[in-house]
């Protein structure tokens, strides 16, 4: 019998349909990946199965758990099933644990929730579960409080609670999206262990094709509230039929291979679906029937004109521009502490005219702090920041204001970075007006800017709320361009966007750089994105740069063990490759910057360190490695902060 069967599930919020007839079955021990972009209805499907949708949602269809119908049950009936036979792991482990109770008590409570055991037995079971999910020193960890745990550890605890009753089905909704990539790799391993230990069926809801490729046996692709493609992981990844799936795979940035190709347009608003296939307006292969009738899901794809995937366009002809000699931004020995926390601890780099430097690293590595220090255009706590040849620490007020023209910013979340109460025209005009540009010129420039980022001039009268995520980010970029800056700082410019839209923004950034000669300083955590955006990359760890060099060099011959681990932790959307490759799994979490150890700060998690002889280890513990040329076999301008990196490059 199937562990979970969902038939013709439909969810409406008032008049707006969110899920429009979804059906699937999951066998025990099977992992079903439910993939889709924001608004595709994948999370609503998960919540509907759990019976956790708000009362204003209308749910029809059937949800059978081991053959028993769940839909229409009262909350009390469902509570008997939830947590025992049907468990859920949420995206944000931060808010899923009560801060005032000990970890062990919370797991024990989950164990006791469905009755039957004594307190002491429940506690012992909690310790076993912590062991199972790989929390070190379970007896001590059980007495800790949630705030003493990192995000990755908390997610392990959530998994422990989910498997407490050997559930038949585990629903995991974006379980690793909030985690750093090295921690994500660990948690995915834990999920695999949990599946083996319980034999549960797993419904994995995610937008990350790489995660699905590594874990799922079968994959459903959702678009506009329906399943548009289904098949085994190999079928969907190697022989996709639906143009949307094909487009999605082509739009995913990869660590190797050609640049991502955007899908034009954006998903239709769920309140106003086109009469035919909802993907038709974005589809290259659309024909007459696509515009009138919505295709139903036949064997593999819901499509009138199933296609075969095209090979990805090859890497560009490799015309790396020669590096300009014109230094736009120079940072030397930058430090920034917040109380006892040394967020940035001696960082050096420079950005030259027309090039892109990316700062990458996991949360807490100090990359965003570095950006904010530069943008403040004020004297740093220690070190020097020189913008366009001017040291910012000794800048008179007027000159600082002038310098702001040349240094602009694009934020991660375009929804938060645009004042919701201002019209697009005013948003774009704001930097111009702040710098005293005359009003007729402002209006002309606003229209010009909209054209520059590929939007119609009639966007000027609209408010940010009426725009899609991709369009909003285009506005953010247009605003940054308004004063014709020499350097734009971009804080995670595409990470808040859907994959199909991401590639379009990346394209736009590249085009603008080519045409306008502006330099970019990008902060990002996604190495695959950075590879296609940047010329040079600096990998940061705990407030310092571990490795810096051209993208080709750092990705081709990574010299620092941390860079290697980061690169190997990124899930790739290729099931065979993803399952076949051996990972450099880093132990532990990135330690908080408050506890930076003496000597090399990476050595506690360093896979290379454990292989060294005792005398060599001594050096790692005593002497902090400085950035030095990576040496033979590495790129010409590649520098690394590791004593023993030579052993890694061959």
């Amino acid at each position, binding site marked *: 019998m199937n562990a979970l069967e969902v038939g013709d599930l439909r969810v409406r919020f008032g008049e707006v349909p969110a899920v429009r007839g979804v059906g699937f079955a999951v066998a025990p021990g099977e992992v079903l990946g439910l993939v889709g972009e924001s608004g595709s209805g994948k999370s609503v499907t998960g919540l509907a199965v759990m019976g956790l949708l708000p009362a204003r949602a209308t749910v029809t269809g059937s949800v059978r758990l081991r053959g028993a119908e769940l839909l229409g049950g009262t909350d009390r009936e469902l509570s008997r099933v939830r947590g025992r036979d049907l468990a859920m792991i949420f995206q944000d482990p931060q808010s899923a644990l009560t801060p005032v109770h000990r970890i062990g008590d919370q797991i024990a409570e989950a164990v006791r929730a469905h009755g039957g055991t004594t307190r002491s037995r429940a506690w012992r079971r909690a310790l076993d579960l912590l062991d199972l999910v790989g929390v070190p020193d379970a007896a001590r960890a059980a007495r800790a409080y949630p705030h003493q745990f990192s995000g990755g550890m908390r997610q392990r605890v959530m998994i422990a609670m989910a498997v407490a009753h050997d559930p038949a089905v585990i629903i995991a909704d974006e379980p690793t999206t909030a985690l750093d990539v090295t921690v994500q790799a660990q948690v995915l391993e834990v999920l695999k262990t949990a599946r083996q230990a319980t034999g549960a069926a797993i419904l994995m809801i995610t937008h990350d094709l790489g995660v699905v490729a590594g874990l799922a046996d079968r994959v459903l692709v959702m678009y506009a509230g329906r399943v548009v493609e289904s098949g085994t992981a190999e079928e969907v990844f190697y022989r996709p039929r639906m143009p949307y799936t094909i487009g999605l795979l082509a739009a995913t940035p990869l660590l190797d291979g050609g640049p991502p190709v955007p899908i034009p347009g954006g998903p239709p608003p769920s309140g106003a679906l086109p009469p035919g296939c909802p993907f038709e307006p974005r589809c290259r292969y659309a024909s007459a029937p696509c515009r009138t009738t919505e295709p139903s899901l036949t064997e593999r794809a819901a499509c009138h004109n199933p296609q075969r995937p095209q090979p990805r366009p090859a890497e560009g002809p490799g015309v790396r521009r020669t590096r300009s000699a014109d230094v736009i931004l120079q940072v030397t020995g930058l430090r920034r502490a917040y109380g006892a926390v040394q967020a940035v601890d001696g960082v050096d780099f420079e950005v030259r005219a027309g090039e892109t430097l990316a700062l990458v690293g996991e949360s807490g590595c100090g990359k965003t702090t570095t950006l904010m220090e530069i943008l403040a255009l004020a004297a740093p706590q220690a070190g020097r920041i020189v913008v366009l040849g001017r040291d910012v620490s000794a800048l008179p007020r007027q000159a600082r204001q002038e310098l702001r023209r040349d240094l602009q910013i694009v934020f991660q979340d375009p929804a938060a*970075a645009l004042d919701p109460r201002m019209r697009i025209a005013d948003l774009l005009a704001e930097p111009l007006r702040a710098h005293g540009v005359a009003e007729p010129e402002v209006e002309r420039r606003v229209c010009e800017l909209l054209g520059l980022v590929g939007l119609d001039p009639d966007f000027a009268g609209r408010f940010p709320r009426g725009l899609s995520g991709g369009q909003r980010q285009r506005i953010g970029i247009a605003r940054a361009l308004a004063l014709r800056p020499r350097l734009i700082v971009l804080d995670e410019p595409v990470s808040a966007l859907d994959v199909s839209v991401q590639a379009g923004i990346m394209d736009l950034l590249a085009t603008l750089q080519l045409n306008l000669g502006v330099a970019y300083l990008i902060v990002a955590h996604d190495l695959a994105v950075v590879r296609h955006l940047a010329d040079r990359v600096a990998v940061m760890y705990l407030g310092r740069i571990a490795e810096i060099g051209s993208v080709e060099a750092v990705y081709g011959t990574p010299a620092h063990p941390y860079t290697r681990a980061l690169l190997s932790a990124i899930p790739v959307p290729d099931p065979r490759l993803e399952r076949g490759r051996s990972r450099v799994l880093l132990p532990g979490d990135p330690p908080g910057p408050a506890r930076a150890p003496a000597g090399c700060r990476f050595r506690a998690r360093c896979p290379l360190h454990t292989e060294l002889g005792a005398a060599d280890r001594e050096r790692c513990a005593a002497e902090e490695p400085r950035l030095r040329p990576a040496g033979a076999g590495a790129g010409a301008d590649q520098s690394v902060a590791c004593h023993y990196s030579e052993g890694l490059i061959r």
Partner: protein
Amino acid sequence: MIPSRGSAVARRMVRDRSGVSGFALLALLFLLAFAGPLFTRWSWADTDFTAFRDPPSAAHWLGTTPSGRDVYALTVRGLQKSLLIGLTVATVSTGLAAVVGAFAGYLGGRTDRILMALVDLFLVLPAFLVIAVLSQSARGHGTLLLVVLLAGFLWMVTARVVRGMTRSLRGREYVLAARFMGVSAPRIVFRHLLPNLASLLIIDATLNVSAAIIAESALSYFGFGVQPPDSSLGTVIAAGSGAATTAPWLFVPAASLLVCVVLAVNLAGDGLRDALDAS
């Protein structure tokens, strides 16, 4: 040509039925307050020695007071005063609160400490006593001084709330974005912070209208504020409420007008808030 933000708000405002009716009612009240006296031969200062405490009649539409004054003329005159006091006090006090709170919250540091010390100082002063004493000694300076005094003691709590909300808005990316763009602090306060606090400010202003009218009538009752023979809705209500059961005409018209004023202001405020928020 790009339509301006103001016209977009106005368009939404016009479409909002309750907001429009609020503004219409407010306009009617103003019309009554300032055109009303023209329709009767009695002025608010007159005394009719032939009619003491008469019920409504053809001569005196709303009757007369025990001292022979025309209730219609008094009420309309009172409406004039109360509308002026209520609306100006609310505007001044909410405006002051918004500016002080937003600058304290946005700039932080020393500005914040000084402004908040000022707020605390005003909070501990016994407002009623200060107003009573000052309005007594400043007799003859008219309503303007009263408005300043009332507004001067209504803004503090709102200023604190605005400061708190500003502090949380200060870290928002669109505020950071403006700062890094080189937009000046006053511009950020007036263009980004205050518009995003508009709903709070509008609610506060509507509440302040009734608070000011009531505070003024309380002052008048104790012999400060608006003094006889001049009248405000508060004084008319205070004078008439004693005989509410035996001579309801003395106080029902003024009380219903007060209700109308507060209702109109609330409706108009809600409409304005929705129109501003719909972006």
